[in-house]
């Protein structure tokens, strides 16, 4: 039980966080729709999502290679992936490591026959960079078992990007929520702020660890990535 993550969502629009640690996710302050609003997985938001997925503001040179793993992770059942500075992981948390290993194996097999990008992202060379094998991993932020790549020498996220730049380019997020990552130990919890775009197809995330305005990771909806890129 101590390894279970703790999710806490608070209303940022009013600058108030006032809920107990066991409180489950609550909807937060709705903000102005993003330009080209609508749905992420379908509708007008797909255009915004496609643009953000390809936006160099958010990404670093190795990102296209990470993007190429999305079809494999999608085939393994992931509906959302987290792209961090040096790894890509699915958001599903497994209670059974064996199940994670089976899904990771399926993803790795799918990775070997990854489809080509219909919409090119990055250079041919960048798209061709090799990823470490997809595996069942212990995700250190919350000690959950996930399917994804281990930490490795890569640059996926533009760690110099700031949320103000994202908002300037893509408008205010549709909503802003908070999520607290507790790994079940007495380690400090990690507070994430999630900026939701294109009906959650793209979620830009910052943390309270250092600069709360700096982009730390991005969540992508795998279905949207498949529809817009592959």
């Amino acid at each position, binding site marked *: 039980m*101590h390894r279970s993550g*703790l999710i*806490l969502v*608070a209303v940022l629009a009013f*600058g108030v*966080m*006032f*809920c*107990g*640690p*066991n409180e489950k996710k609550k909807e937060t302050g709705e903000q102005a729709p993003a330009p080209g609003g609508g749905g992420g997985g379908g509708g007008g938001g797909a255009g915004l999502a496609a643009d953000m997925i390809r936006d160099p503001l958010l990404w670093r040179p190795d990102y296209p290679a990470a993007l190429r793993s999305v079809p494999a992770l999608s085939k393994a059942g992931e509906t959302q992936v987290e792209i961090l*500075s*040096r790894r890509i992981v699915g958001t599903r948390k497994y209670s059974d490591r064996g199940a994670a290993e089976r899904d990771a194996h399926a993803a790795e097999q799918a990775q070997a026959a990854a489809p080509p990008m219909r919409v090119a992202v990055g250079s041919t060379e960048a798209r061709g960079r090799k990823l470490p094998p997809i595996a069942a991993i*212990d995700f*250190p*932020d919350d000690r959950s078992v996930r399917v994804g790549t281990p*930490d490795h*020498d890569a*640059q996926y996220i533009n*760690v*110099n990007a700031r949320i103000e730049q994202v908002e300037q380019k893509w408008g205010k997020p549709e909503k802003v929520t908070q999520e*607290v990552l*507790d790994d*079940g*130990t*007495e*380690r*400090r*919890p*990690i*507070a994430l702020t999630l900026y939701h775009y294109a009906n959650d197809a793209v979620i830009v995330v910052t*943390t*309270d*660890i*250092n*600069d*709360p*305005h700096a982009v*730390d990771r991005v969540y992508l909806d795998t279905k949207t990535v498949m529809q817009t890129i592959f």
Partner: protein
Amino acid sequence: MRRNFFAILTLSLLSAVAQAQLVDIANNATDPNNLDDSEPSIAVNPLNANDIAVVSFSGGWSSATGLKGPVWRSANGGTTWSKQLVLVAPSPASNGTGDQNIVFTKSGVLLLSELGLGLAVPRCFFYRPSGGNFVAGAAYGDDQPMVASAGGTTVSPWLNFGLAPERSMVERTPNQGVGVAQAVVGSAAFANRTTRVAVGPNNQIYVIYKTREAAPVGNFQQSTFRVVRSFDFGVTWNTPGVPVHPGTVMTWFTSSWGNAAKGKVGRARSSDAWIAVHPSTNAVFAAFCNRNAAGRGQIFVSRSINSAGSFSAPVQVSDGTLNSAYPEIAVAANGTIGVLYLDFNDSGAQTVFTYRFARSFDGGVTWSRVALQSFTTQSLSNGNSGFLWGDYMGLTAVGNMFFGVFTGKSIGRANVQFDPIFFKMPG
């Protein structure tokens, strides 16, 4: 006569308050992102008590950008502070600290223990000075690394979640973290937690920890606080050690310390014990929590005069009227004992939290308490409910002076928020 009594009492109280020189370590220039600066630790250079170092959650580190983690430093006894970015990221995968502690060696060398966020176990590191910065040694351990210096050996108690049940461990290094070795020090009979360390005048090492002996009931859990010792620089220990109180206690084990209906809450699962040693007599003092008959968690202190072979009957430090936790204890050179702790009063519309400093001038028999600072969480702009100030504060003594730090209400900042607040009090 009565008038004189009250006059003296008033003067005493005013004097005590005046002695608590509160300084906000952070300011708008050093904390532009209004971070909560939680879970602080403090170290004072034994060769120069004006040289003080504090760590708190006040910024991250990054190999990708070259950003280094912060250490707060004062060169004038805590009057003014600078934020020095000197902690080199231990790994490209880590973006900041998840737990930390700080100590000066007897020869005035600053050392730290750090848990690297973003890392799988082993994820803790000794940090040592290097070229104006501090660099990580070999990886070890799992959770809540403390640090202490015993002669040429540096030790770091930590909690091992990889064992079942969870176990208190001690890492040791003869070379400031370049090479490390570990020992299991906690009882295997129950899950351990709250592993804290103190070093005696002849490098005796004492570690306090608790064994969690039943399922939590409400916010409390039946536990035993024990002290283990090592007389050979952490190589061997008298595991499982000796209890510091008769029977068992009901101590805090909660992720909702406070009143969630009346403000944000902290967590107090490993915020219930600390240990200190008299710098010349080697008397060992254990501070810990136990619930009183009224159902309130209180702070107690017990003493050992035989190198933690046995402990005296505990004496209550807090006054019994409010729920209290987060004890830190230190002993001044003149024998005065100091205990920093936090209590809360939820009788009004909003929970009022108060940091208090208690001193005993008679070896722990009687205690006098001073309120350092009170606040409601509603008055502060930051702080994540369920964590807030962190798991512990900082307290140490050099000579006859106590030096402390807690995560409290900012002083003199337009954006009222959690900040690291420094104080010193005479012993």
